[in-house]
């Protein structure tokens, strides 16, 4: 069991980032979507798609690792084919599956691979350390699937306030909108004054799945918690009455502040299952905010 200081966790975080980057560099993976099979092969990880009680799990074995990925029986052959196909290499797997595999792959970074079977060097014992570990693996997975330099290049070529461009970016990298937005948040990318919000309908009300908010707006749009009700952000004027077929809807949004309301250009795109991608573009910098 391991109890660790925040300093130790920072060291692990650095180590995960370095390993992810060097793995991508050594395999010369410079094109999105990042193929998964070379990464898995380099880590001596065999993937087993099968019905599973959880989304994913990793087991060390004499030959390296076995990564289990939840898959309903009818899809097993298809997903296996997509991963093994030399042209595909796992690029066309569903975003959630790609993320699960990348997440499990990052778990292998914590193993001493010189021993057989590999020995886990980080066995957390508390709620806090388990949460930290899982978060690290999530970040590592995002690092693998969305390399910062590639993402920066591609993002520059997009209009980041266009919901369709954002969706296109997520599709290009084979990741979900949640993963993309969280990565943009952690990769210090890219937004001029404004915000990107990915919303879903939960219990009849809109909740925030993921958000990127420019630092200049942090006082008027405080960094939202995951699944925080959208209503708590006090953004008024956004038109959500869009159907899936309609192009993104433009409207004007306002955020009340202590001095005067801030105006945004709001662009909203309705997605499936009561989900929305909302971008807020501010034309002015709020007073008192540098």
């Amino acid at each position, binding site marked *: 069991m391991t109890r660790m200081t925040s300093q130790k966790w920072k060291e692990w975080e650095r180590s995960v980032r370095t390993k992810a980057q060097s793995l991508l560099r050594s395999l010369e993976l410079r094109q999105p979507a990042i193929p998964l099979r070379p990464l898995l092969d380099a880590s001596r990880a065999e993937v087993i798609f099968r019905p*599973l009680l959880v989304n994913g799990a990793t087991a060390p074995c004499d030959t390296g690792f076995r990564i289990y990925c939840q898959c309903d029986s009818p899809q097993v052959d298809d997903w296996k084919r997509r991963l093994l196909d030399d042209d595909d290499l796992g690029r066309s797997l569903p975003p959630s599956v790609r993320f699960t595999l990348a997440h499990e792959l990052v778990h292998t970074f914590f193993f001493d691979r010189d021993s057989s079977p590999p020995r886990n060097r980080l066995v957390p014992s508390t709620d806090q350390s388990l949460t930290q570990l899982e978060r690290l693996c999530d970040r590592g997975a995002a690092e693998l699937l969305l390399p910062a330099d590639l993402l920066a290049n591609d993002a520059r070529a997009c209009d980041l306030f266009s919901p369709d461009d954002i969706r296109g970016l997520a599709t290009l990298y084979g990741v979900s909108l949640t993963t993309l937005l969280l990565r943009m948040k952690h990769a210090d990318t890219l937004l001029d004054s404004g915000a990107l919000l990915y919303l879903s309908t939960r219990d009849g009300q809109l909740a925030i799945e993921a958000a990127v908010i420019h630092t200049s707006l942090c006082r008027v749009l405080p960094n939202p918690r995951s699944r925080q009700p959208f209503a708590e952000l006090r953004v008024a004027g956004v038109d959500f009455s869009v159907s899936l077929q309609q192009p993104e809807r433009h409207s004007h949004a306002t955020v009340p502040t202590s001095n005067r309301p801030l105006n945004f250009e709001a662009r909203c795109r309705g997605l499936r299952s009561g989900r929305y991608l909302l971008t807020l573009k501010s034309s002015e910098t709020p007073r008192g905010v540098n």
Partner: protein
Amino acid sequence: MDAGIPPDSAKLLALLPALARWRDRRDAAGKDPRPFIVEIAGMPKAGKSSTIAQVRHFFSHGLKALVGGDTSLRGTLPPEYRVYTPAEGVSQRTPAQLKDADNLLEYNTWAGAYALQELLWANHNDFYDLVILDRGPWDAGCWLEYVQKKRKNDSEVPECLKDIIAFFQLPEWTVKADLHIVLVVDPASAHEREKQERLIPHRGPASNKDLMEEMERIYRARFEALATEKAKHCDCETVETCLLIQTTNRDRLSVAREVIERILTVAAAGAVTVETAAAVEVTTASSTITVGSVREAEIAARGTGTSAEIVDGADTETTAELVSVGPVGTYASTRRVSLTVAEVRRMIWPFLKNMKPSQRRNIGPIIKEIVAKARVLSPEGQTAFLANLSSLIPDEQELLNSVSADVLGTQLHAILDKSRNK
């Protein structure tokens, strides 16, 4: 079973499933899940700590050695037993100022109260399989009796001391430990052991001949009372749930083996008395024990190379429903026994193992609820439930994953619903 295991240890290993079955039987009888609790008491230098270390190691690692590469045994047993040995209160936890003040009354009362807390905690814990208390409340009572004898003319010793002693040795507490082991040693041997373990002379209690002789008298006398009380109050009718071992001239391993065998014997007997279930006799070198299930007998027979004989009258898995599938002593049942919480916990253990401690606490009531619902299913439904659940769990010794109690609970409910149609 791993090759190279000494025959004596192999025989004990073969009996090891008795502890899992003990939990199963409690579960089947609707009793709260809790670990098997052993209180180890005794004289200084009698070998308590080294015995505990050996017992702990045996139970923590034994199942892996027993199962080895035999995949047919996986799933019927947990991957490993979870053993908890709290720090000894007297030497590890008692505040230094009590030691320094040489106030033996308060010192031993504090240690007894600490031990009682550990005992009560263990009685309400559903995570561990085995808890071994290094000096429990009963032991504190023995030491307080020594204080009483030594200071019988001391006016500062309160008159209620005998009540304090009686409190720590109340049957209410003694029956909460499933087994009491009392280790005694000849005072001269104890002194010798203490000398051998130190580079410079040490004046611990073992070097105080008067104290040691008095303590040996007290332990032996109190043990008689303990045995009588436990026979009167304990469920287990066939095996004595307390054992006094004279460790002088005995090597540590043989003492540990005797303790382990008694733990497993009491567990096996307790398993049977909770429910008058299948009675299967397994003969080992030193004793004949009755195990709780045919499966357990099968494992025992394989391990020892001895035969397992099914006794007429077994009712949970009646002999008529048993099919001999191999050499004498290897049996399989055609009908499953009612589903238990322990069984489900064992199956999903690869996922529980890595769960956050708080989540693991939350999943307990969820599993209980699921099992209660599953038990009302038809036998085919119960079998389908287990088969469906089993199909979602990879057969891996070590599996890293992260799942919350809520997610796991939702999944289990979905599997239960799927099995209802059977």
